């Protein structure tokens, strides 16, 4: 098990009380596995991603353990988390347009993360890594794209660049928080396929957070269903789709199939 979450509880402060965002959630993921985390808005999917990367707001309450490569990383020192983020556990966000700094070129931003995270001093070496990663995430015309500013690129191109940046730091786990929900169908399908290829090529472990069961069906090995901060079910994809045990999972699958017609 490369990443294990044990009895994780998180609650956020609201005006008068604490609201439970995650209630005693436990799961684990193996190396090279794609775990899908599904649930509707507000079910705690993103909180889960934030707690793994130690990015929870400071006034939230939390308890539990997150074990990454036999070490508890939950609520670690800021210095340790800084090393962890990006280089050990990568994160890809929902909206590629707000992932990048709008006033710097892609090239500048790419060079910067390689310098600060991997400490690569020589420019040709950095260039080599950049082109290699853009290639891996199937970015065409990489020369032109590197010279561009974020607003000059389409959503699909930006998301591919974001994926390239994430894999450039060679993380062992990649958390993708609804990476395709702001893209349209033709691009979504390609990006999903890219995740599959990356898993096979780089032996990446991917935690894929989504509310789209279609994507889960075509991409994931195992699926965890979250509802109102509770983990309702975590099983192999085939078993879950064929024979959902939990009531909520069943209603989720129902609304999904109704939508499909």
């Amino acid at each position, binding site marked *: 098990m490369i990443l294990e979450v044990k009895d994780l509880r998180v609650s956020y402060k609201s005006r008068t009380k604490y609201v439970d965002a995650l209630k005693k959630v436990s799961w684990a993921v193996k190396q090279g596995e794609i775990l899908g985390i599904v649930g*509707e808005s507000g079910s705690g999917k993103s909180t889960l991603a934030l707690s793994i990367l130690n990015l929870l707001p400071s006034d939230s309450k939390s308890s539990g353990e997150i074990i990454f490569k036999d070490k508890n990383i939950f609520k670690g020192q800021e210095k340790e988390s800084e090393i962890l983020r990006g280089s050990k556990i990568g994160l890809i966000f929902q909206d590629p347009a707000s992932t990048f700094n709008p006033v710097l070129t892609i090239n500048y931003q790419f060079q910067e993360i390689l310098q600060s995270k991997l400490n690569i001093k020589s420019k040709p070496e950095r260039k080599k890594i950049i082109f290699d990663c853009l290639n891996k995430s199937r970015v065409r015309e990489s020369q032109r794209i590197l010279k561009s500013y974020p607003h000059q690129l389409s959503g699909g191109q930006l998301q591919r660049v974001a994926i390239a940046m994430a894999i450039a730091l060679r993380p062992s786990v990649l958390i993708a928080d609804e990476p395709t929900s702001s893209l349209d*169908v033709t691009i*979504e*399908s390609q990006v999903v*396929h890219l995740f599959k290829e990356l898993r096979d090529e780089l032996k990446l472990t991917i935690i894929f957070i989504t509310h789209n*069961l*279609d994507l889960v069906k*075509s991409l994931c090995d195992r699926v965890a269903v979250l509802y109102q901060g509770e983990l309702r079910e975590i099983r192999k994809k085939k078993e879950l789709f064929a024979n959902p045990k939990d009531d909520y999972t069943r209603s989720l699958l129902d609304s999904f199939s*109704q*939508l499909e017609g």
Partner: protein
Amino acid sequence: MENYKILNTENLKVHFLQKGKTIKALDGVDVFLKKGLVTSLAGESGCGKTTLAKTILGFYQPKEGKIIFNDKDITLKKNQKIIRENIQIVFQNPFASLDPRYSIFYSLYEALSVFPAKGGPSKKIKKSESIPFIKKALAEVELEEDIFERVPHQLSGGQIQRVCIARSLINRPSLVILDEPTSSLDVTTASKIMKLLIKLQKELEITFLFISHNLKLLKKISHYCFIMYRGKIMEYGPRDLIYSNPLHPYTKLLKEASEQKLKYLEEQKGYLSGCPFLSRCPLKKSDCEKESVRKEVEPGHFVYCHLYKG
């Protein structure tokens, strides 16, 4: 009885100027909407779906072409009032469609007071008189009366979208345009909204123009489908024919994508004329650099593609 065409566009062209370049957002679009049916418009981002909706509503002035609504050309200034009275729209992002300072009651009251409803209240309706109409409108979209005095930020996305649907239906328009009404909602909510829309459409027999990029979603609701790419119509026909026998390579690609089977898109540059799909088309021939013409492959099923003989 054959449903007559409530709206049709003739060679509609809308061009935008951007940095000195002309962008052909709509490049000769002929679509028609049949009364009492759901017509869907599918295509990827940037293909001109929303531009078409906005042109029908009179937000953009077309460069060429006509939009005929009940035998009147609504692109003319003097006919603008017809648009306002008969055509309504529900937008993609419900949060941006309501005034954040207005209560739900006031948002609906405003819609009611600006244009008189058919068989409804007169134009200068008082607030107190409008209550039964608004109650009824909210009941139609399955909302409780207790949201009357709330403001949009106190509601969930699904609830606001229901309010938007109620607002669009309150004056009983003859045509409602739904521009990706479920794409910012999650699966469970989206499924409920789709059910509601299907129910309302059947009950009220309103004509819908349903815009989406998700073919799976459209399959559920539509009777008639138009597939659009880069400002042109690629294929159209009754839903069952489009889904059981997609003809145009682009329709096939969209279908593949909606099933997550599309792996990689090849794109070649350098084609300026002919079929707009040429740069991506896997089956192109030399003929394709010529303008494609409409062909009827099966009865009622048309395609703009050189691969078929009509």
